[in-house]
C-alpha cells in the first residue's frame, strides 16, 4: 500500500509549436487509487501534455503538478514518479541492465532495484543483450522497468500497449490494475480505446489539444447518439438544438448527442412535429470515442 497518494493536476496547460496549438488549455486532475486513461487520436497532444507534466517541455502557459509540486521541484523525482514515454529512449549499444543502472545511479537507487524491476517485467534472461536488438515489445517492457525503478507512487505511461501482443496487453492490464489497487496514481495514454478499456476507471479524451470528454466509461456510453427524422426536418433539428444537445442534420435525418430517444419523442410531440423515424444509434464505445474525437477534427 502506498501511503498518502499523489494527485496530478493540470491547470489550463497550453503548448504551441510555432503556429500549431498542440495542447489547448487543458484542465483536469488524476486521482490516486485509480487508473486514468488519457485518450485521443495520434497528434491529439497526449505526448506533449505528458512531457510538460514531466518538465521536459516548457508549457506556453498553465501548469502541471504532482500535488502542487512541479516535476523539476520534486526532491527525488524517480522515487515519486515513474515514467515510460512513448518514444522509449535507449542507447542501442547499451544493455538493458546497464541502461537501468545508469538511471538508478542518477537517482541514488541500489542495483538490487535494477535486478528486481528486470524480474518484474520478465527481462532478466535478456538483460545483458544490447537494446539495439530488442523487439518493440521488449523495449516497452524495458521502458516499464525504468518507470518502476524508484518504486514510485505515481506512474505516467505513454502508449504502453503499443507493440505488445494480446498476451502482453492482458499482462499490462493486470499490472495497471494492481498498481492502482495499491493506492498509486496511474495515468496511461493510448490512441486505441479498446486497449485500455478494461483497465481504466476514468478517461480523459482529447482531440486537437482540447478536452472533449472527462468521466467514467459508463458516462461515455450514455452519450450514444439518437437519430430522428420528420417531414419538417429543419424544425425538428432546431427544436432538439434548443435543449442544448449537439445536432447534425444529414440526408438520413437528424443526429443528436446528449439526449435520449424518449426526450426527443416528447419534444416532437409537444412541438407537434410528426416523426418518421426515431432510433438510438447503438454505437459501441469505440464508435463513441471516434465520434467524439472525429467530430472535433472535422
Amino acid at each position, binding site marked *: 500500500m502506498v501511503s498518502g497518494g499523489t494527485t496530478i493536476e493540470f491547470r489550463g496547460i497550453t503548448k504551441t509549436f510555432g503556429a500549431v496549438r498542440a495542447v489547448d488549455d487543458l484542465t483536469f486532475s488524476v486521482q490516486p487509487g485509480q487508473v486514468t486513461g488519457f485518450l485521443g487520436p495520434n497528434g491529439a497532444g497526449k*505526448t506533449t501534455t505528458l512531457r510538460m507534466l514531466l518538465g521536459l517541455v516548457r508549457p506556453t502557459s498553465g501548469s502541471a503538478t504532482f500535488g502542487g509540486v512541479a516535476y523539476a521541484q520534486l526532491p527525488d523525482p524517480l522515487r515519486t514518479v515513474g515514467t515510460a514515454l512513448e518514444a522509449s*529512449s535507449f542507447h542501442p549499444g547499451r544493455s538493458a541492465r546497464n541502461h537501468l543502472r545508469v538511471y538508478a545511479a542518477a537517482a541514488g537507487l541500489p542495483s538490487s532495484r535494477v535486478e528486481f524491476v528486470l524480474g518484474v517485467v520478465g527481462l532478466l534472461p535478456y538483460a545483458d543483450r544490447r537494446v539495439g536488438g530488442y523487439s518493440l515489445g521488449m523495449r516497452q517492457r524495458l521502458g516499464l522497468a525504468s518507470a518502476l525503478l524508484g518504486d514510485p507512487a505515481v506512474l505516467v505511461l505513454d502508449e504502453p500497449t503499443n507493440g505488445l501482443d494480446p498476451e502482453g496487453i492482458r499482462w499490462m492490464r493486470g499490472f495497471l490494475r494492481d498498481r492502482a489497487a495499491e493506492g498509486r496514481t496511474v495515468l496511461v495514454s493510448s490512441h486505441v480505446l479498446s486497449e485500455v478499456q478494461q483497465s481504466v476507471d476514468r478517461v480523459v479524451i482529447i482531440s486537437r489539444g482540447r478536452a472533449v470528454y472527462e468521466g467514467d466509461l459508463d458516462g461515455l456510453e450514455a452519450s450514444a447518439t439518437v437519430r430522428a427524422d420528420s417531414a419538417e426536418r429543419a424544425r425538428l433539428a432546431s427544436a432538439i438544438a434548443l435543449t442544448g444537445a449537439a445536432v447534425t442534420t444529414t440526408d438520413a435525418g437528424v443526429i443528436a448527442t446528449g439526449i435520449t430517444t424518449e426526450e426527443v419523442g416528447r419534444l416532437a410531440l409537444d412541438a407537434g412535429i410528426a416523426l418518421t423515424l426515431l432510433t438510438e444509434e447503438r454505437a459501441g464505445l469505440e464508435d463513441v470515442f471516434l465520434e467524439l474525437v472525429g467530430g472535433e477534427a472535422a
Partner: protein
Amino acid sequence: MRAIASEARKLLSVRLWWILLIILVAYVGFTAALLAGLFGALGDQLASSPGAPQLPVETLPPIVYSTATAVGYVFPLILGALAVTSEFRYQTLTPTFLAQPRRGVVLAAKGLVLALAGAVFGIAGLAASVGLGAPLLALTGNATGLDDPDTWLLLARAVLAMALWALIGVGLGTLIPNQVGSIVVVLAFTQFVEPILRFGASIWDWTAEVGKFLPGAASDALVGSSIFTSSGTGTTAVQSLEWWQGGLVLLGYGAIVTVAGLATTWRRDVT
C-alpha cells in the same frame, strides 16, 4: 555525486571509449615511433651537413613524446562531443532529465567525467609515445630525456591538455547536437582549417600574434612542445604562449562553447 556516477556508467557501458582509445594508442604509437626512428637516425647526418636546419638534441624527446597530444588531441575531443550528441541522437536526454531535472547539474557531471576520461586518454597516449619513442631514441644513440624532471612536467601538462580537449568536446557537442554535424566540424577544423590558419598566421608577425590563440596552438603551448611548432623553424620565429596561458586559453574555449550550448540547445524542449 549521483549525476557523476550516472555519467561514468553511461560512458563505460558502451564500446565507443575503448574503440577510440585503441585507435589513439595505435596512431600515437606509430607517429612517435616514426619520428623517433627517423630523426634519431637522421640526427647524425644533419649534424654533419652544416647547411641543414638543426634540431637541438634536447628537443627531440619532447617532440616525440608530445605526439600524444599533437596528433592525439582529436580523440578526447570526439569522445566528449559524442558523449553529448548521442544523448540527442538516441533521445536518452529524456530519461536523463527525468532522473535529474536540473539540466546544468547533468552537464557539469558530464564535463567532469569526460575530463577524467580525457586525462586517461592522455596517459594512454603518452604510454604509447614514450613507450615506443624512448627505446627507439635510445637505440639510435639519442638521449631519452627521461632522467630530466622537465620531461615529466611536460608529460603532466600533456595529460592536462587532453582533459581540456575532452571538455571542449562536451561543449561543442552541446552547441552542435547533431552527431554527424559535430564530427564533421571537429574533423574539418582540426585536420584542415586550423593547420592552414596556423601556417598562414605564421607568415607575418601580427597574424602570428593572433594565431597563437588558436586552440591547437594554445594546446601546443600548454604542453610545451609539438612537431608542428618545431617544424616552423626558419621563417618567423613562431610565437607561442606561456604554458599556463595556453591552458587558460583552452579552458576559455571550453567555457565559451559550453555556455553557448547551455544557453541554447541544452535548455530546449525535449520532444
